[in-house]
């Protein structure tokens, strides 16, 4: 193959360049690129969620004294499981919100 500005190429030169030509379609290469992009999208989505998780943890920490007092009065049996349960609920709500607003849509392609 030659560019539009060039004369016909010497056949030996053409054969030399043709030896390096990849196939027109290569599902293996395309799959490798797709995998790398999926990792990039996952990392990007996780980075998007980090501020929300940090806010959830901060809110839990700030509100816990007041919340614990109320929860202990209502649910005396909570004990030490209360903080874990509340933090889990907040993180779960954050992940659900991320899923609901399409942050993890690309995983459907990967699965």
């Amino acid at each position, binding site marked *: *193959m*030659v*560019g*539009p*500005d*060039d004369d016909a*190429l*010497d056949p*030996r*030169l*053409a*054969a*030399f*360049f*043709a*030896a*390096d*030509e*990849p*196939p*027109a*379609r*290569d599902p293996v*290469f*395309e799959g*490798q*690129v*797709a995998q*790398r*992009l999926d990792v*990039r999208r996952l990392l990007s989505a996780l980075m998007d969620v980090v501020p929300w998780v940090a806010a959830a943890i901060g809110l839990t920490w700030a509100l816990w004294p007041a919340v614990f007092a109320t929860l202990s009065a209502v649910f005396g049996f909570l004990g030490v499981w209360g903080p874990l349960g509340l933090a889990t609920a907040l993180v779960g709500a954050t992940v659900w919100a991320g899923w609901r607003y399409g942050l993890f*849509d*690309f995983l459907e*392609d990967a699965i």
Partner: protein
Amino acid sequence: MSLASDEAALVEAARAGSSAAFGELVARHQQAVRGFLRRICRNWADAEDLAQDTFVAAWENLGKYSAGSSLRSWLCGIAYHRCLTYMRGRSRSAARDAAYSDANDAAPAPSGDDRMDLTAALAGLPLDQRAAVVLCLSAGFSHGEAAETLGLPLGTVKSHVLRGKAKLMEALDGRS
């Protein structure tokens, strides 16, 4: 729908986040990008890695691509700059020697003296000249497209192609 407008639609869809659209763009242009990198790197393994890097970089920078310009040129431009960075990461003085020896390690076994002579001659060209020769003589780029891809003046590209081709022909004809 023409090929250009079809491709423009794929780019728009990819920008909106469509994995399938970007995958189709990869499928359409992987041959050109990988062929270009194989010929200028002379190390197929590194060329494949650089080709993957090129498409990942393209995905991250799709917003910078100007609709209406050649996507193939844009992708090869990214590939060229990736290769430049790759070459600079290696010892400057050993780059050409390493490329030549890597070509013997990683590329398919030469089929004849012609291939060995051309491999050595191509490896001996400076990277920008090698890239111009590969784009114009094997990838079907015009001098203008190659100049846009490589970020070089048009006159420089024409000169590179003329001199590069002369050196390759000298390697072929000088032996016979």
